[in-house]
C-alpha cells in the first residue's frame, strides 16, 4: 500500500519533467542549447509565488476551471500504472479515466468562455471539435485492449501480457500505439495539431484558452497539462512493452526508459513536422480513428 502511495507521488513529482525533455529534444534537433529540463519546475515555483489578475467579466467558473481540471488529472493518475500496479483498479475504471479527462476539458472550456473573449471562445470551439474525433478513437482503442487483455481495468489493459505469448497480435499492438500516439499529440496540444510555443492566438487551441489565467491558476493549469501528458505517455510506454511489473526497482527503471522513449519521440515529431492547417487536423484525427477501427476489426476477429 505504501509503495502505491510512493508510486503516485513519484509520478506526480516527475510529470513536469516531460515538457522539459521534449523541449530539450527539439533544441537538440534545432542545434540549440535550449532551456533546462527542469524549466517547468522553476516556472511553477515562480507562478505560485505571484498574485493573480482577473477580468471583471469573469465569475467563479473562471477560478474553478484550473482547480477542477487539476483535480481530475490527479484522480485520473490513480488509475494509471507507473512503475508497477496502479494505485486503484477496478473493473470499468477505464471509463472513469476517460471521463475524468472529459470533466477537466469541460471546465477548461467553460473557464475560457467565461472571459467573454472571442479568441478564447475560438480556442474552446476548436478544443471541443477535436475532442469529438479523439474521444471515440480512445474508446475504440480501449475495446481492443479490453478484448486482448480480457480486463476492464486500465492498469491491466495497458499491460496485456498475453500479447507477448502470441506474436500475431504484435502488429495489432503497433496499430494501437500509433493511433494512441496521434490522439496523445492532439489531446496534449502538441505539433502537428497545436503549437504550444507560438504566440499567435489565432492558430492555437489549448494555449489560447488559458490566455487570461495568471499566478497560481496558471501554475495549476501548466502543472495539470504536464500531468495529463505524463499520464498519456505512461499509457503509451506500457503499451510499447506490455509487461506487468511489481513496484520494484526494475519496474521503475523499465518504465523510466520507456517514458523517455515516448517523450523523445514526441520531441522528434515536433521537430520534424510543421503544424497542420486547422482544417486539415480533423483529417489526421479521422485517420487515427480509422486505424483504431481497423485494429478493432482485427481484434474482434
Amino acid at each position, binding site marked *: 500500500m505504501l509503495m502505491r502511495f510512493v508510486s503516485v507521488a513519484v509520478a506526480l513529482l516527475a510529470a513536469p519533467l516531460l515538457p522539459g525533455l521534449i523541449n530539450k529534444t527539439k533544441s537538440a534537433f534545432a542545434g540549440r542549447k535550449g532551456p533546462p529540463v527542469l524549466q517547468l519546475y522553476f516556472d511553477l515555483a515562480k507562478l505560485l509565488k505571484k498574485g493573480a489578475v482577473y477580468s471583471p467579466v469573469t465569475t467563479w467558473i473562471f477560478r474553478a476551471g484550473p482547480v477542477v481540471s487539476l483535480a481530475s488529472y490527479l484522480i485520473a493518475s490513480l488509475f494509471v500504472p507507473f512503475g508497477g500496479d496502479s494505485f486503484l483498479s477496478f473493473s470499468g475504471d477505464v471509463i472513469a479515466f476517460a471521463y475524468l479527462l472529459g*470533466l477537466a476539458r469541460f471546465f477548461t472550456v467553460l473557464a475560457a468562455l467565461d472571459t*467573454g473573449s*472571442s479568441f478564447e471562445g475560438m480556442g474552446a470551439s476548436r478544443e471541443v471539435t477535436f475532442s469529438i474525433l479523439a474521444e471515440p478513437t480512445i474508446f475504440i482503442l480501449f*475495446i481492443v485492449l479490453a*478484448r486482448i487483455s480480457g480486463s476492464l481495468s486500465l492498469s491491466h489493459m495497458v499491460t496485456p501480457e498475453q500479447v507477448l505469448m502470441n506474436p500475431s497480435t504484435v502488429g495489432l499492438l503497433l496499430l494501437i500505439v500509433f493511433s494512441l500516439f496521434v490522439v496523445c499529440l492532439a489531446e496534449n496540444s502538441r505539433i502537428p495539431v497545436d503549437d504550444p510555443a507560438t504566440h499567435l492566438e489565432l492558430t492555437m487551441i489549448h494555449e489560447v484558452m488559458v490566455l487570461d489565467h495568471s499566478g*497560481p491558476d496558471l501554475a495549476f493549469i501548466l502543472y495539470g497539462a504536464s500531468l495529463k501528458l505524463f499520464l498519456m505517455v505512461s499509457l503509451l510506454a506500457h503499451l510499447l512493452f506490455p509487461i506487468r511489473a511489481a513496484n520494484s526497482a526494475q519496474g521503475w527503471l523499465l518504465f523510466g526508459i520507456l517514458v523517455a522513449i515516448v517523450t523523445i519521440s514526441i520531441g522528434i515529431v515536433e521537430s520534424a513536422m510543421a503544424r497542420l492547417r486547422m482544417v486539415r487536423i480533423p483529417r489526421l484525427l479521422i485517420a487515427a480513428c480509422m486505424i483504431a477501427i481497423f485494429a478493432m476489426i482485427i481484434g474482434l476477429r
Partner: protein
Amino acid sequence: MSLFLLGLGLIALGGILSLIPRVPRVLASAVCNGLMILGCAVGVVPAIQVLAGGPLPSLNMPWSVPAGQIELLIDPLSALFLLLHFIVCGSAVMFGIPYFSSYEKTQSLKPVRFFTSILIISIALTFTAQNTILFLGAWELMALSTFFLVIFEDRQERVRKAGFLYLIMSHTGTLCLFVVFLLLGRQAGSLGFSQMAHNKDLLAVGTPIFLLALVGFGVKAGFMPIHFWLQEAHPAAPTPVSAIMSGVVIKCGIYGLVRVISFFPTLPAWWGIVLIMIGTTSGILGVVWALAQHDFKRLLAYHSIENIGIIVLGLGFGCLGLSLNNPVVAMLGLAGGLWHTLNHGLFKSLLFLGAGSIYHATGSREIDQMGGLWKKMPWTGFCFLVGSVAICGIPPLNGFVSEWLIYNASFVLGIHNSNFCFVLGVPVLALIGVLAAACFTKVFGVLFLGNARTEAAVEAQEGGALMLIPMLFLASLCFAIGLFPGVFLPAMSRVITVFSSVEAGEFHQVAMNQAGMLAWIGWLSVGILAVIGVLALVRRLFLVGKPVSASATWGCGYALPSPRMQYTASSYAQFSTLMFRAVLRPLVHMKRITSLFPAAGSFESHSPDAVLDRFIPRLAAILRRVLYRVRDFQHGRVQFYLAYVLLFLILLLVWEFHGVSLLWKKIFLLDAVTKVPPP
C-alpha cells in the same frame, strides 16, 4: 396502495378545485398547486417503499366496461417510474406557481391546473395499470392532457402546429398499441398483464408485437425517425410542462416498451440488436441536431431524443444479455438503461426548469441573446451547471453512473463476443458524450458566462424561491445519485426481476458484485469533490497576502471589444457542425462582404429537422395530388351519384351470381384465421 390512492386523490382534488369559478387568484393558486405538490409527496412514499424491498401494493376491483378491470400494482418497475414521476411533477408544479403567474393577466390558468392534475394522475395510472383497457385509457388520457397543456399559448402559430403534430403522432402510436395489446391478449387469453407475463405462447407472435411496440411506444419516447413531434412540442409547451414532458411523458414510452418486453420468457437476439441500432441512431442524430440549435428549449428537446437513444442502447444490451444468457451483461444493460431513465428525468427536468427560469427572466429563448447571466442569476446558473455536467455523463454526477453501466455492458459483451454490433455501444456512447459536452459547454457558456449580449439579459433576475427550491431539490438528487450509487443498486436489481426472462437469484448475485464496483464509482465521485475542495483551499492559501487585481479581458491587443464580438452559440458550434453537414444540411442565409467598403453583413443558419421539414412535406405534396384526384368523385352532379349506385348494384350482383366473391375474399383477407398454435 392507500397512500398511492390518497396521493392521486389529493392531486385530483387540486384539479377539480381549480375549476371553481371566481376564486381569488392567490388562493386558487395556493390551494390547487399546494394540493398537487402534497399529492406528489404522498404518492412517492409507496414507490420508495417498494424500491426498498417492501411488499408490492396492489388493488383489484371489477370495472363494468368490456374486458376492463381496475387492477393496479406497484411492482419495482412501476415504482421506479413512479418515483421519477412524482419527483419531477411535484417540482414542476411548484416551479409553475411563479412561472404561470405572469400569464394570469392575459388568460385563465384553470385549464392548466386542471389538465396538469389529469396529466399527473393519468401517468401514475399508466405506470401502475395491470389491465389493457385501463392502461390504454390512462395512456391516451395522458396524451390528451399533455396536448391541452402544450397548446396553452395557442394564439401562436408555432404552438398550434406543435400541438397538432403531437396529437396526431401520439394517437397514431396509440393505434399501434391497440394491436400490440390485443395480440398479447389473444395469445395470453386475457387482457390482464399478470396473465401475459411469463406466457410462453407470446413468442409465436413476438415479431409483430415487438415491431408494433417499437412504433407505438417509440413515437412517445421519440425514437428517430419518428421523433419529429418532439422538438416542436417540447419548446412550444410552457416550461414546467416541458419539464414534465421531457422528464416523464417520453419515459412512458420507455416504460411501455420495457413492460411489453418483460412479458416474454425468452427474447430473440435480434430484438436487442434492433434496440441497439435505434439507440445508436437516436443518440447520435439527436445530439448532432441539438448541437446545431440556437433556441435553448428546442436544443433541450433534441437532447431528450439523444438520451432516449442512450436509454434504448442500454436496454438493447440488456435484452441481448438476456437472450445470450449472460446475466452480467443483462444486469448492466438493463440497470444502466432504466437508471438512465431516472437520471435523465431528473437532470433534464432540472435543465428545463433552468431554461424556464431564464425565459421567465428574459422573455427570450434565443441562446445568442443571452450572456453573463451567472452574475444575475447565480442560483439558476449553479443548477443549470449541475444539469449540464450530469447530462454529459461526467462524474461526479448521476449521468455518469448510468452511462458507466451501459459502457460496461458493451465492453463485457465485446470481450466475449465477436459481433461488431455488440461493441458498437462503446464508441457511440463516447461520441454522444463528447458531443453533448460540446453542446452543453456551448449552452452554459453562452447563456451564463461572458458579457450580456442584450438589454433583456442585463436586466434578468432570479425568479424567487418557488422557482429555486425545485431546481435545487433536483440538483441535490443528481448529486445524491452520483455520490452514492451503491445505495441505489439493490433497488435497480429489484426492478430487473420484473422481467419474465430473469431468474431472481442469479441476478441478485450479479447485482451484488456490481454494487461493489459501483461503490468505487461513488468513492471516485466523492474523491473528486474532496480533491477539488483541497485544491481550492490550496489555491486560496497561495493567494493569501498576494495582490489580486482586476483588469479587462486580454483582447489580443484590440482595445474596444463589444459583447457582440463574443463567440455566439452558432459560431461556437460552427466548426463541429461542419463535420456533420452531410446529415444536418443546414440552411445558411448570408450576406457576404464583397467590396472594399462593406455594407452590413449578416449570417444566419438553421438546421431543419430531416424528417419533419424535409421528408414530410414531400410526402404531403404527393398525397395532396392523389387526394385531389380522388375528391373529384364528389363533384356535385347527382347523376353521377346515382351512377355509383347503379354500378355498385351491378357489381354486387355480378359478384354474387358469377362467382367472383371467393376471389375478393382472398384479396381482402376477410377470412378468419384461427389462433396461432404455440411452437
